[in-house]
């Protein structure tokens, strides 16, 4: 099955429609940030945009440890009382989202949080559902849906997961 990531971004933007002035867009690293940047632009959202690197709130830290990385959380606005549109590329187990919400709330108390994802691939392990979805598909646990940003062109690839290294 071929997924056109660029087409899905447009689809997702159409489904979200318009954003109120008190809505802030926040992307989850890495794929979610790329999608959030596109949505932010297409929906003419109020700057600035926030990013979340959820590494520091992950629940598998004690198993996989901390790896050096360049991506970092950046929340250059006050989120108290704001409506948040949280953006990720793929919704899978829901564990990343749990970590993202925990991290988000370290910055304040938003009025509401809505979730937009390019693809919901199923196999949830936590009780989450997205408010806006580009496409829904079924993949089995050994498969991984990976978004890459090749010179500002977004592309989805399905890869076979290395079983010892569960990353989502």
């Amino acid at each position, binding site marked *: 099955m071929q997924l056109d990531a660029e087409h899905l971004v447009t689809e997702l933007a159409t489904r979200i429609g318009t954003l109120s002035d008190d809505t802030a867009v926040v992307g989850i690293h890495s794929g979610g940030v790329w999608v959030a940047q596109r949505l932010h632009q297409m929906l003419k959202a109020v700057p600035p945009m926030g990013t979340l690197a959820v590494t520091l709130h992950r629940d598998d830290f004690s198993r996989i440890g901390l790896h050096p990385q360049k991506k*970092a959380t950046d*929340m250059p606005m006050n989120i108290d009382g704001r409506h948040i549109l949280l953006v990720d590329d793929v919704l899978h187990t829901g564990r990343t989202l749990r970590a993202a919400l925990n991290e988000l709330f370290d910055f304040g108390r938003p009025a509401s949080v809505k979730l937009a994802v390019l693809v919901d691939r199923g196999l949830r392990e936590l009780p989450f559902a997205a408010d806006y979805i580009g496409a829904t598909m079924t993949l089995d646990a050994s498969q991984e849906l990976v978004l890459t940003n090749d010179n500002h062109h977004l592309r989805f690839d399905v890869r076979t997961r290395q079983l010892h290294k569960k990353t989502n």
Partner: protein
Amino acid sequence: MALTFNPQLRSDGKLKHLLSTEGLPKHLIEGLLETADQFVSVGDREVKKVPILRGKSVFNLFFENSTRTRTTFEIAAKRLSADVINLNINASSTTKGESLLDTVDNLAAMNADMFVVRHAESGAAHLIAQHVKPGVAVINAGDGRHAHPTQGLLDMYTIRHYKTAFHNLTVAIVGDVLHSRVARSDIHALTTLGCPDVRVIGPKTLIPTEVARMGVSVFHDMARGLEGCDVVIMLRLQNERMNGALLPSAHEFFKSYGLTTEKLARAKPDAIVMHPGPMNRGVEIDSLVADGRQSVILPQVTFGIAVRMAVMATVVGA
């Protein structure tokens, strides 16, 4: 070098304890600095905490007083959500006859996950690291004249923050090099990171003979030594460690080796000035420089917390 036993590293090369910047591979130092980047902003959040060390017990074992270093480790551990137990172990426990390792065994029996150790004897942290059971991490917070690796790493973080890269830098370390574990930790880290020109500046009595073998150049004339420097690291004159007459007087020292605006003018115009603290104003550094435009002494303190968080998050459970 690669064949020497390094108790800091696991057999797969990961960092297990942090004992010294000596023998720490370049990629591990760079990894720690990158990890620290993620932690710098935690201090700016409304909730200044991340859950990485939740449920872990960190014991600060200070056999030598240092309120400042102990506090920065305590803040770092607390921002990682660890439980922190501070122990200032002065002469009393030794008077009671308990050995260093007995003290450690007792605390290990209370299920410690990490020891942060400051001791007046060189090698104390190594001894403890070789003694603890697997899964318990040891961080050296300063041992005698030997090493102060987290200070060395935070100095590298500060330099990288302001100067981006190391390969084209001239760095001067000035003052009481003889008693300084900071100087040793900085020199090892700088040479590992590829800094081509490391200088030490100070009077003959305060420059140990072995530093020339560490790949640095030695200057006794401060003005000459500072010529063209990008980074000037001032050291604290350690009066409490002075045995015998190594110096005529603090005033004499300031005249020759105190950093003043005039002496700093020999370095590059955008040179940064660093100091591990606490400063002796008017002894090794003039207030005009310490509080001046080129001083990054207070940012060092802020970065120090992020770097210590990075070290703790990396060694825990490794």
